[in-house]
């Protein structure tokens, strides 16, 4: 028997220490040897290796910590007293925290390893010290958010996380897009924090303490109206961070702007801290007795986010923006699980809620891994081809075969196709929703089938989008010189992606360990005594409640491979051996196929753009140059714009009205001293009249 009591604090210390050192040591180096750590300086490489090396070590420790908590089920608890006036604070890592720590650490390990190679790009251009310091403190604050057991501590880490990411987003601040993204991000996240602060204060007003323990005890006893306000505040506050629609506007701007290793962490795990917060507040603090409309609201948000997220992704040709929109989509899918769990719990059907919650949490882990993988892949592409615009890419599968392979794994996983991990969590979500149809309520009966249908739509659209993303980026002929000259990434980068790809496969084929860990976790969150809502039997996921709906991804994979092998063997032995020949692609009778004859990403997404034209409101402009003669036109430009409904009809009007209100109020500062004196006069008179 392992001594968890001794091991866990040690692992925690190593993890936190690793990140902290990874932040502090480069900072000290940077201050001591300012010149040698400048871009191009002799120490920059060392700074990079120290910083990301420590991050890697810390991430590995984090994996161990997470595993130990998840397996043993014993939470890690630590307390300390920072100052008298705020009282005792503590760290508390229960299985829920451990799950998220696990996601961070797995992806963190990969991202750190990836960065060792990837960050070399910045050696000559950018302050490596800054990157490393920010990166490590970013991850550290994420961990802090997950283990904080006190509202002040939580907000502290929460805001540190926002702060570090802000500087990471604006890391390449010469780009206007990065500055804009940073601004949008920091403003949105700050508004979110304001809601969170209100939420904690409301909880505090009843619990009388900011310790999460007190929230846990008293949260369920709040008056119903307060509970609902807390719920709404949490939904908005955490939702902004998670990137739910309509609070998503920052996300597609911010994630692409950051360096790719950071985008991977942001998209893969940072937005999950929003999910963590929601689960923590909804189930741990407020739950499990909750009003029915919560679940409906969350499901509505979930469906909107997932469908619109993927639709917007389809219109994107910037690889990283595209991935960012998919994050919105996947947050939607996660929230489908969470929302369904809320809905079922409100009807008192906790075992069912457990299934839904497991589905959501499983997808958290999955999304962290495949989205991380995809962002790292996008980073590799960017690194090699110096562009994120897929219209300029193509043919990379031959130039960077391993990257292409790993990206393909990620693409299959995110599209929810068997036998990879995305499929399992979507399958569980479907199961939970199907079972929930038996709840005798009209709203539920309408909401659930629609959710199911739209989840199916989401999955299909995601597949379409990744056919586009992978196909246009990696297949065919290179569409630009950059793409043509691209080369394979360095070993550390490939290793990182390979690790994540393996995880995608592992989590897809062997869901057993995860489910067996998630089931007690979800049961305890919902205060459901029994576990075993999802049973693992010989590699098969079984849901006993649903007349034994089951799936065995391992067997499925086995069958797929074996059955594919039969014709493969047959064809390669009997047919192909001598009679295969290479020929150019048919080019409609032209001499040679040209990259420009290929389908473009814009063209690829056109059918969907037309089908969903009400959502996209696309406008295009065709520019035909009249030079040198109207009969011979060397260049034709085609520019396509899709309109962001939320920006146009929600944010811009709000922004405009705030500005015009501010303009009106600003008139009080007239510049005329007589007016100012009149203010004093009037204030005095008013006080004398009313405040005597």
């Amino acid at each position, binding site marked *: 028997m392992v001594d968890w009591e001794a091991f866990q604090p040690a692992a925690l210390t190593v993890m936190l220490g690793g990140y902290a050192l990874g932040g502090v040591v480069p900072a000290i180096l940077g201050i001591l040897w300012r010149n040698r750590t400048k871009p191009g300086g002799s120490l920059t490489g060392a700074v990079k290796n120290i910083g990301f090396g420590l991050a890697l070590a810390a991430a590995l420790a984090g994996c161990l910590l997470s595993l130990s908590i998840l397996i043993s089920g014993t939470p890690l608890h630590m307390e300390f007293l920072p100052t008298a006036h705020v009282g005792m604070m503590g760290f508390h890592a229960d299985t829920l925290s451990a799950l998220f720590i696990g996601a961070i650490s797995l992806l963190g390990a990969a991202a750190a390893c990836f960065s060792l190679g990837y960050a070399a790009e910045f050696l000559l251009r950018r302050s490596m010290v800054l990157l490393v310091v920010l990166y490590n403190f970013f991850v550290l604050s994420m961990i802090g958010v997950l283990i904080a057991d006190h509202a002040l501590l939580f907000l502290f880490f929460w805001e540190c996380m926002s702060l570090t990411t802000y500087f990471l987003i604006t890391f390449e601040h010469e780009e206007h897009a990065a500055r804009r993204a940073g601004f949008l991000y920091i403003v949105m996240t700050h508004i979110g924090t304001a809601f969170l602060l209100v939420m904690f204060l409301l909880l505090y007003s009843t619990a009388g303490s900011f310790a999460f323990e007190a929230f846990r005890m008293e949260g369920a006893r709040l008056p119903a109206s307060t509970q609902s306000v807390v719920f709404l505040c949490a939904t908005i506050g955490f939702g902004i961070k998670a990137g739910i629609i309509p609070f998503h506007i920052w996300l597609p701007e911010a994630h692409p702007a950051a360096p790719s290793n950071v985008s991977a962490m942001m998209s893969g795990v940072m937005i999950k801290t929003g999910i963590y917060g929601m689960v923590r507040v909804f189930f741990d603090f407020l739950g499990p007795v909750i009003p029915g409309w919560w679940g409906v609201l969350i499901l509505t948000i979930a469906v909107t986010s997932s469908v619109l997220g993927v639709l917007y992704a389809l219109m994107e040709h910037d690889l990283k923006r595209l991935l960012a929109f998919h994050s919105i989509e996947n947050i939607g899918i996660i929230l489908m699980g969470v929302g369904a769990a809320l809905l079922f719990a409100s009807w008192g059907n906790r075992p069912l809620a457990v299934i839904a919650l497991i589905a959501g949490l499983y997808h958290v882990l999955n999304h962290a891994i495949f989205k991380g993988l995809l962002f790292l892949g996008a980073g590799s592409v960017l690194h090699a081809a110096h562009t994120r615009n897929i219209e300029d890419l*193509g043919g990379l*599968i031959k130039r960077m075969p391993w990257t292409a392979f790993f990206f393909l794994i990620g693409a299959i996983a995110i599209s929810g*196709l*068997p036998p990879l991990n995305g499929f399992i969590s979507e399958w569980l979500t479907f*199961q939970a929703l*199907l*079972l929930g149809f*038996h709840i005798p309520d009209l709203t539920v009966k309408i909401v659930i*089938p629609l959710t199911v*249908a739209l989840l*199916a*739509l989401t*999955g*299909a*659209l995601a*597949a*379409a989008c990744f*056919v*586009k993303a*992978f*196909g*246009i980026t990696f*297949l*065919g*002929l290179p569409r630009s010189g950059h793409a043509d000259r691209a080369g394979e990434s360095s070993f550390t980068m490939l290793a990182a992606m390979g690790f994540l790809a393996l995880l995608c496969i592992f989590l897809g084929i062997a869901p057993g360990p995860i489910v067996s860990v998630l089931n007690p976790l979800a049961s305890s969150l919902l205060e459901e005594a029994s576990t075993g809502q999802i049973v693992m039997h010989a590699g098969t996921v079984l849901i006993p409640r*649903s*007349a*034994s*709906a*089951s*799936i*065995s991804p391992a*067997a*499925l994979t086995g*069958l*797929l*491979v074996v*059955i*594919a*092998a039969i*014709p493969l063997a047959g*064809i390669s032995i009997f047919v*192909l051996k001598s*009679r*295969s*020949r*290479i*020929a*150019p*692609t*048919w080019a409609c009778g032209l001499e040679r*196929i040209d*990259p420009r*004859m*290929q*389908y473009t990403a814009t*063209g690829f997404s056109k*059918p*969907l753009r037309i*089908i969903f034209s009400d959502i996209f409101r696309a406008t295009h402009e065709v520019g035909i140059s009249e030079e040198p003669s109207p009969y011979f036109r060397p260049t034709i430009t085609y520019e396509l714009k899709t309109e962001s409904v939320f920006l146009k009809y929600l944010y811009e009007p709000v922004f405009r009205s705030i500005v015009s209100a501010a303009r009106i109020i600003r008139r009080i500062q007239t510049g005329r001293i007589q007016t100012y004196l009149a203010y004093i006069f009037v204030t005095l008179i008013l006080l004398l009249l009313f405040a005597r």
Partner: protein
Amino acid sequence: MATIILLSFLFQIILVIALAPLVTGIIRKTKARFQHRRGATVLQPYYDLVKLMRKDVVVSSVASWLFHCTPFVVFSSMVVISLLVPTVVTPVPLHWVGDIIAVIYLFALGRFFMALVGLDTASAFGGLGSSREMSIASIVEPAMMLAIFTAAVTAGSTDLSVIVDRLSTTPASMLNPSHLLAFAGLFVVSLAETGRIPVDNPATHLELTMIHEAMILEYSGPYLALIEWASQVKLVIFLALMANMFFPLGMATTWSPSALAVGAGAFLLKVIGLALIVALVESTNAKLRLFRVPELLVVAFILSLLSLILYFIVGA
């Protein structure tokens, strides 16, 4: 037990795979008859496959390894699906491996690779096909899921064998209006999924209209054979799904030879019957413009939704 499983395994594979070209042949023959042609023999698809198997494989110089592995992925996923769908016997021995959702997603897996290959060879037609295929698949999916949802909800499980079982024990519910509506929804969906008129024309190679064919334009020889065969299998699977999920009459519940014989007979009858209906629809309808297809699928979606609402009201 192991032998039974192995036997049933082979039985199912052989039944579906071997039958698939025949069903396609029957549909072609029927369509020819409708067009007052004599048409090729119903066995023509078999001849085609054999012929293709013997041909050279011509590979584009642009193509990557994906080009080589896709036919196997597609074929293999179709065959695996055929193992999960009850055809003659219920429960299927491998029903625990995957349910109806797995089936739908396995279809998607095959389609995903196929669409990728469309882009692999840098051909303009490939991209066109992939784009259309994925677009239409996207809007098919919700309707299909809803139609299946009705069946699954009735049975309380997504396990195909369970669905079939439940329905065979209460045959009256087969004529339930919600059930019939769901069937209608699934029928429309099946036409779209299997690339039949009015959504796609399996016989055309005109770039304005083709969808499925455009993706596989660069394929030849045994690869093409595998892909063609896979799509024939896909058609049979859909017919089987429609037949057995909604009208599981005559299905064998044991592995006794007599039951199997009855089951196989019933299955053949149902599949061929449905194939004839498909042929009828194909012959009496024109292919829709691409952007009219969503309207058709919205109809399917509404049908499925109606069936659910009816299920809720009538409470089958």
